[in-house]
């Protein structure tokens, strides 16, 4: 019973959807204000979703209809599943086991794979180019992201997110050691969530809409909801790993702190989105492997040295 409640309502599908739509609104509003515009009203993402749900699904005749329709469903399922292992307002996630960091990171990779599958099986040329770009981009940001998050886990000497949160609550200032990881993770998150400068798979001016070119109606609604929920889940993961304060407070205050942390991460991503142009895929890979991955490696080395020094 409790499991059903947590899957569908909180912190499952309904809560994540509403929070995701709110995050999309905040992202668009901040972006608009930074560009000296007015921006959409608060119900705009909800209105977009409802409109898309009401439209017809058009499947191209040459597309593989099974893969085409299953891709968005897998995407949304994987993102909703991954939130169960992330500590939200206490130091305990809903379910935890040793090694759930790897599980969460894997579950968060699945949406990108579904973008690839959906785009490839659309058989439209624009979609195929977008799909291939999504996978190529995966090679660039995934490794630094993994390394940065695992560096924090190294310092806590555990592979479980809940125990990591508990460790950092016991030693409040240890999060300062992970600042390089903070920066690396933020850049890698831009790649994962496909925001400028890394919105290459969905470059509107080059390949129409990338993997989503042939999608319409309910399937596109699910994909867009996936992107919103993915933003929330990745921001929650980021907040749990790099901003571990307020986890031992009263549940309601702790929940408010959690919302604030997530919205702060969303605002940071919006700011980063407005101040740079889009990179080319080869420039992005070169940048990530030349600068970002070595920094992540440096963070691991620092944390290893600190672990030896502090916990002899």
């Amino acid at each position, binding site marked *: 019973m409790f499991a059903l409640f947590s899957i569908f309502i909180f912190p499952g599908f309904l809560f994540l959807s509403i929070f995701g739509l709110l995050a999309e609104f905040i992202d668009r509003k901040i972006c*608009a*204000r*930074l*560009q*000296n*515009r*007015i*921006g959409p009203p608060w119900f705009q993402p909800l209105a977009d979703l409802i409109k898309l749900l009401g439209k017809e699904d058009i499947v191209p005749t040459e597309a593989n209809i099974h893969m085409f329709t299953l891709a968005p469903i897998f995407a949304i399922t994987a993102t909703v599943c991954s939130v169960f292992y992330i500590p939200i307002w206490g130091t305990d996630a809903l379910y935890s086991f040793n090694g759930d960091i790897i599980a969460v990171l894997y579950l968060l990779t699945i949406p990108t794979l579904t973008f690839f599958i959906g785009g490839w099986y659309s058989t439209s040329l624009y979609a195929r180019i977008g799909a291939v770009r999504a996978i190529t981009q995966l090679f660039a940001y995934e490794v630094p992201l993994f390394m940065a998050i695992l560096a924090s886990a190294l310092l806590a000497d555990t592979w479980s997110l809940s125990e990591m949160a508990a460790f950092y609550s016991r030693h409040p200032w240890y999060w300062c050691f992970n600042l390089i990881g903070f920066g690396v993770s933020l850049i890698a998150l831009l790649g994962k969530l496909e925001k400028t400068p890394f919105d290459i798979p969905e470059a509107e001016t080059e390949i129409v809409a990338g993997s989503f070119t042939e999608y319409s109606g309910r399937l596109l609604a699910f994909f867009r909801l996936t992107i919103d929920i993915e933003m929330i889940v990745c921001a929650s993961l980021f907040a749990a790993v790099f901003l571990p304060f307020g986890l031992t407070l009263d549940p309601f205050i702790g929940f408010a702190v959690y919302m604030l942390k997530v919205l702060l991460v969303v605002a940071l991503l919006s*700011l*980063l989105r*407005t*101040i*740079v142009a889009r990179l080319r895929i080869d420039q992005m890979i070169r940048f990530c492997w030349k600068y970002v991955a070595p920094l992540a490696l440096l963070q691991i080395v620092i944390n290893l040295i600190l672990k030896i020094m502090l916990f002899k």
Partner: protein
Amino acid sequence: MRPGIILRTVLKSIFKKPATGDYPRDRSGMPAGFRGKLRFYPEKCIGCKMCMRDCPSEAITITEVAPKQFECEINLAKCIYCAQCVDTCPKKALEATGEFELAQLDLSKLKVVFHAKVDPGTEKPAE
């Protein structure tokens, strides 16, 4: 070479008023002299029809409804709002107002007629 140079300008924009005008709540309109919908003064027209000759899109028609009384029909859909007829008219019977919100759903409403003031006795018999 520094990335994100535009950061300071972008942050300052949060405190500035948005540059987007909140139309339709804010209808400050266009500056004076804007070439919008035409206006015809029937008492000044002498029926030379030079405006009809010079109109690039045949949007204006002058008809004589009574001796020396002319009425004017302007097709707002065809008019390109160039105001050449305003310049051509030797008696300054046409004028460009600043009205530009002229969209209609009904095509027949786009034909605007400026009736002449006709004395009842001098009307031509209807054909």
